[in-house]
């Protein structure tokens, strides 16, 4: 059992380092050009934010349409902390997450009584309120004109190095987010969260404090979205309330639905795919949204559960199959998931 634990940890750590080194090196030597590097970084931010939404919508089963609102809170808080209070960048990003988490708690409480469509509308309203707030808190947020001159991740003059540093920041946060969500979900509190999605009444009768876990997942989700927002603000170097309106919220929903509600790897794949497809479709100009909408409809017809449904791809599960390791009856949760997907 101990051996399995270490095996898992090593595989995950090893895989994330290897992927990082490859991607960073390719950017540095120019195989991945600056444009694609930027897209990769943007994908990473989408991974953080989309996973945060998947926690609420995919795992807890609460349809939320205001994720960009949390992002917005995080982005502005981080930017203001850096620009006005000269807080170090890492700390500022975490503060952004925490302030967004406070909003998560505030939004979480009234939504305990709302279900399905009603909750969706309430969260949609929340997103709009935040947007309007950001426009009207002019002295703090720059109002409709936006907030300019947010310091970048690095001050280096070397464009290539600059891109790699940007990418590294986002990559680390994306990996940490993936680990947080997957470790949480493959645990007893995670199962409690999933039981709410499956059947609230039954979960309640099985001793699960539903209100607590709903608030918990809203709060954690808002925190992660806030962190994603903070990264986004620094990445863009400029913030404007319209960056966090209805459409960006919908984009995040689209990523989560495309990847599969309740699938972490699905969300990761969909985040990257979404970022690139959005760029490729730029050549169609205004038709872009039409094509995108059509593609969505087709996906919903042919893959109603999204790319991966609620399944996961797992490296350790894959490696296990590859090396035909004996299945240990004392497997831990995450490993079970891994081998289940390996089939």
């Amino acid at each position, binding site marked *: *059992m101990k051996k399995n*634990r270490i095996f898992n*940890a090593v595989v995950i750590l090893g895989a994330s380092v290897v992927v990082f080194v490859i991607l960073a090196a390719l950017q540095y030597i120019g195989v991945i050009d600056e444009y694609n590097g930027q897209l990769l970084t943007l994908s990473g931010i989408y991974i953080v934010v989309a996973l945060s939404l998947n926690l609420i919508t995919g795992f807890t089963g609460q349809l939320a349409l205001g994720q960009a609102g949390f992002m917005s809170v995080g982005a502005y808080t981080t930017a203001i902390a850096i620009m006005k209070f000269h807080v170090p960048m890492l700390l500022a990003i975490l503060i952004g997450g925490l302030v967004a988490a406070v909003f998560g708690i505030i939004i979480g409480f009234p939504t305990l009584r709302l279900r399905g469509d009603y909750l969706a509308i309430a969260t949609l309203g929340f997103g709009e309120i935040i947007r309007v707030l950001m426009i009207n808190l002019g002295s703090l947020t720059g109002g409709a004109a936006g907030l300019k001159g947010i310091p970048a991740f690095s001050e280096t003059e070397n464009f290539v190095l600059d891109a790699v540093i940007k990418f590294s920041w986002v990559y680390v946060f994306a990996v940490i987010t993936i*680990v*947080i969500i997957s*470790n*949480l979900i493959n*645990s*007893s*509190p*995670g*199962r*409690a969260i*999933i*039981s709410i999605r*499956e*059947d609230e*009444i*039954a*979960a*309640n*009768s*099985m*001793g*699960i*404090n*539903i209100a607590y876990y709903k608030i*918990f997942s809203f709060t954690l989700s808002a925190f992660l979205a806030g962190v994603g927002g903070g990264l986004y603000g620094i990445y863009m170097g400029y913030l404007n309330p319209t960056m966090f309106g209805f459409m960006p919220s919908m984009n995040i929903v689209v990523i989560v639905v495309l990847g599969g509600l309740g699938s972490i790897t699905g969300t990761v794949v969909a985040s990257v795919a979404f970022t690139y497809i959005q760029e490729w479709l730029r050549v169609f100009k205004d038709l872009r949204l039409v094509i995108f909408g059509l593609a969505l409809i087709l996906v919903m017809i042919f893959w109603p559960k999204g790319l991966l449904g*609620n399944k996961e791809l797992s490296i350790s599960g894959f490696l296990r199959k590859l090396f035909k390791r004996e299945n240990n009856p*004392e497997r*831990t*949760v995450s490993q*079970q998931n891994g081998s*289940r997907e390996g089939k």
Partner: protein
Amino acid sequence: MAVLEAQNISIVFGGLKAVTNFDLKLEKGELVGLIGPNGAGKTTVFNMLTGVYNPTSGDILFNYSSDDNASKSIVGLKPYQITQLGIARTFQNIRLFKDLTVLDNVRIALHFNVKYNALQAVFRTSAFYREEGRVAGKAKELLEIFHIGEKQNELAKNLPYGEQRKLEIVRALATNPKLLLLDEPAAGMNPQETQDLMKLIKFIKDQFNLTILLIEHDMSLVMGICERIVVLDYGQTIAAGTPAEIRKDPKVIKAYLGEGGEFDA
């Protein structure tokens, strides 16, 4: 000392008196049946006992600890709090976590006894591994007792109907209850399955040291295993007593079969 005592509970929905002045006293180790025609208010009684509804009036006392005198009112508590005190239930229409595995269904019921928090889960501390091992072991042990251990990795929805009912009972038992409420456990079962279920109910009652209250329409089951029966009609208790007494009670016969009917169970 009574495990559960419902004192004069009533509930009104709008103008409808769903249950009126219901009294019930369950002694430790009893197996009591709650019967009555459709719409009599049986499930409403269950919902009041488990906190899904709050009675409009009356009180429910539950003896939650091993100390005989430690009873407290459970009116106003949330369902999950009542479950944590020791009342577990199954549902009339099966409410399993359909898309989760059999094992996960049971592990969710064990959740409130798990001694690590979300933070420890994220950091995968040793408490996490220790508790996960314990919970999985306990869940498998329970599944083994009911001979569905080998199906632990199947999705609950893929189990045959009888086993789904069984799993619901296992899941309820995983919350370590003192009192088990079974809402029509034999619904949809054939006579053979009902026979097996009767044995199963007797078995769990002894094995887990339980007090059981069950709602059932299958008279062979009710008459066969219940020590005492309470009959509800239009929200009111019309009779209570041993199976033999109930069988002969003219009010019960009238409620079920109309004037001049006769039980053949």
